[in-house]
């Protein structure tokens, strides 16, 4: 086996040191009747060349977004990825390290994470961020649990226009801790949270209200009324945000949010069929910061007074507090967090704002072109960012299969969520006018 360097001579030397004849003697603690008598039923081992061929065959069965033009989003986005990212995170020093337990020889990862935390705090306008969570959905679930612990309440308010998969993840986490969920309706005309429905809630019992900005339909929410109600009654405002939108939209910090989460895929991570991505998690105030889940890196000095970084506030964590920890998370998505830090660093102030601006402009261009196709309309009136919903009385899943024949991945049919006739398009700065014009022509032919 090519990854096992042990030679038969070395093996004999080791057996001799141990005073045994065969490696089998080392497994005598395992009851004999349990031990496998035959080989596992697995394919025979492959050489590197055979392995590569097999993976190429599998990869070719997938229609990729390098060869096809995509308008899919809904949580995974085709933003441009600067080339240097793969070269930097491909370095073995980042790729093959683990959690920086030995700070003196792990300053590279520790400083990268400290910079990541700063970048997340900056774009969200919050005081502090942790070192990352698994993804946006699980980060939101943890934010709700943290809000319950901080307020000692057991009701969480979720809007119906939250990403359905995020809602499902939050529900799975909360159900297991007996936290109940109250839902906020959305106004079917505007697509954003229905303000009158805020009156029906007993806010004195609410640990937190969640608002997704922009919401699942790509629309911008009016945060103020929710914030006022939840915070006046002692609850927390949790915002789930698309980080790219923060190049343009008011930051959660400016809006007065208590906890901010989101998915960091769009910050330089490939879509990768949905993962790995990362969840970011930011908050403010000493009390909440000390309740954050997950790893946190802090600045300190060494014995000679030189600046350095360490894992800190560890008494929140499972390896110290065990069942009393703020979360069970251990490994997070460190390499993806590093990717996002590189992305935000190389884009800088201007690049970050340009991506948001171009995504906004291009999404509106496509929206306006699609609305010229007879039979298609815009069901929601609230302002949108880089995603938008179109209504058309056709079978969008079938249309999408026909679009794929012509090299396009169309929008996400919302029929899967019971929203018939609706389709959600996403446009990033990566799309060109030519691609969009061609798409409109092809789609027009299919719908008409």
């Amino acid at each position: 086996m090519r990854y096992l360097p042990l030679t038969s001579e070395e093996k004999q030397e080791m057996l001799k040191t141990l005073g045994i004849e065969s490696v089998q003697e080392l497994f005598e603690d395992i009851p004999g009747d349990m031990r496998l008598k035959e080989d596992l039923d697995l394919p025979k081992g492959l050489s590197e060349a055979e392995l590569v061929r097999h993976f190429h065959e599998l990869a070719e069965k997938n229609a990729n977004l390098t060869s096809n033009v995509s308008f899919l989003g809904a949580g995974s986005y085709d933003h441009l990825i600067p080339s240097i990212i793969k070269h930097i995170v491909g370095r073995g020093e980042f790729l093959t390290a683990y959690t920086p337990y030995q700070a003196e020889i792990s300053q590279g990862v520790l400083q990268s994470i400290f910079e990541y935390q700063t970048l997340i705090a900056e774009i969200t306008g919050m005081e502090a961020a942790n070192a990352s969570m698994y993804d946006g959905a699980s980060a939101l679930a943890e934010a709700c649990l943290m809000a319950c612990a901080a307020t000692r309440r057991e009701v969480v308010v979720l809007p119906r226009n939250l990403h359905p998969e995020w809602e499902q993840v939050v529900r799975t986490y909360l159900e297991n801790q007996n936290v109940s969920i109250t839902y906020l309706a959305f106004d079917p005309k505007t697509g954003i949270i229905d303000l009158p429905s805020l009156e029906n809630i007993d806010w004195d019992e609410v640990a937190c209200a969640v608002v997704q900005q922009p919401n699942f339909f790509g629309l911008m929410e009016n945060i103020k009324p929710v914030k006022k109600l939840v915070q006046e009654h002692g609850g927390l405002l949790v915002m789930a945000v698309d980080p790219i939108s923060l190049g343009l939209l008011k930051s959660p910090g400016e809006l007065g949010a208590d906890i901010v989460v989101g998915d960091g895929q769009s910050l330089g991570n490939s879509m990768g069929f949905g993962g790995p991505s990362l969840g970011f998690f930011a908050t403010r105030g000493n009390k909440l910061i000390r309740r954050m889940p997950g790893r946190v890196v802090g600045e300190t000095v060494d014995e000679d007074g030189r600046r350095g970084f360490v894992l800190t506030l560890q008494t929140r964590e499972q390896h110290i507090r065990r069942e009393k920890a703020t979360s069970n998370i251990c490994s997070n998505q460190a390499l993806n967090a590093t990717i996002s830090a590189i992305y935000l660093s190389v884009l800088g102030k201007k690049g970050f704002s340009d991506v948001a601006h171009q995504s906004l402009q291009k999404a509106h261009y496509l929206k306006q072109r699609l609305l010229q196709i007879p039979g298609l309309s815009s069901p929601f009136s609230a302002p949108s960012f880089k995603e938008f919903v179109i209504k058309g009385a056709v079978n969008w899943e079938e249309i999408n299969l026909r679009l794929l024949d012509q090299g396009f991945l169309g929008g996400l049919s919302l029929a899967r969520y019971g929203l018939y006739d609706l389709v959600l398009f996403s446009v990033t700065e990566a799309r060109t006018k030519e691609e969009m014009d061609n798409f409109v022509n092809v789609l027009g032919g299919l719908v008409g």
Partner: protein
Amino acid sequence: MINKTIPLIFERSTPGRLGYQLPNLDVPEIPVSELIPEEYLRVEEPELPEVSELEVVRHYTQLSRINYAVDVGFYPLGSCTMKYNPRVHEDLAALPGFANIHPYQPESSVQGALELMYNLGKHLATISGLEATTLQPAAGAHGELAGLMVIKAYHTHRGDGQRTEIIIPDSAHGTNPASCAMVGYNVVEVPSNERGAVDVEVLKGLVGPKTAGLMLTNPNTLGLFDENIADIAEIVHDAGGLLYYDGANANAILGIVRPGDMGFDVVHYNLHKTFSTPHGGGGPGAGPIVVSEELAQFLPGPVVHKDAGCYCFSMPEHSVGRICSFYGNFLVYLKAYAYILSHGSDGLRAVSETAVLHANYMMRSLQEYYHLPYDRICMHEFVLSGKWQREYGVRTLDIAKRLLDYGYHAPTVYFPLNVEEAIMIEPTETEPKSTMDEFIEVMRKIAKEAKDNPELLTSAPQNTPLKRLDEATAARKPILRWSK
């Protein structure tokens, strides 16, 4: 390694400098004020650095040079299985047919990805001796969470709602009790006996109508195989509970014994450990779970099944729900699939046999120099104690820091909690004998230094980019970000 502090990326910033350029906007521009209400627009600009591409490359290259990794040297971090990560896997994960596909594409356009998921699930079932797999969990602790939810759903589904306790050995990873708390279970701790295994007599007294299950790592965190596993399984099953296998130490038993044959009902694998996906400085990992046929209906989904030659997603009938968006860490578990295919059944068994041989060789080579609390055959790792060195005023932490001076990563220290001054060493199967021999020599030398010149240890490390860091102040007055 470089012996200086590296400026933060923010401290390298120069106003007006650009690191990346977008193509020119090629659609007619509409004034933003016509698209977004003024009050929604950002006022305070985020303080992102303004640096050139070269500056970013140099910044991270310099950072990489003050970071230890498997690619740099021996990394015997017990319980973390820091084995070699084949580089070809990075090429495979970067293929556009994997890296550049969207989770919501029509299923017919991602049959290769689904086939991979289906096959990986099958292979993990074969390796574990169980039936059904979900690839959703993003890490080991996430797998524990998923597995405990499945156990809870099983009892609830049977109308057996009074089971509120999970039994966990005192040697368990901290994630075990923390995961129990996340699903609302109470933790009952079972002590270890004099052989470092579960005390079966005590266990008999702990099980009862409240027992939902038992979580066990086997081999356990002492690196010892629990010989009484058949009795343990019977005791827990007879009481109506289920057995959860924490796969953190699965590197010892591939192709040798299967958790399903030991009596476990739920297993999680840490693919970043056993199946060699890179640890990435703390993730991303992957922690799929495999369960018995009876429990398959409760798995988090979606899962992949095969229907008339096509692969498709489905939710198990009584699924506990989703635990992350999309399908888990696809580009991570893809590498584990590659690892399994490269090794085949012979290769996987050779992995475990070699890992166990290496660990025993190192343990026997060091036991005269450091206290060995459990003098018996170990599996893929072993635990020493620094307690002999305490009489010289030296702690295990000092031994660990002295190892850094010699150019090694330290073993896991102060874990498991039931061994004082614990030093947990896991060499893995991918290390050459010469590397292990050199490390053994250094460990012996350090034992001598502890006696003859303890300051060398208590003042260590001296040859690293930084000396010991002040963790107490960092926690008392947290500085968690740079500020302008």
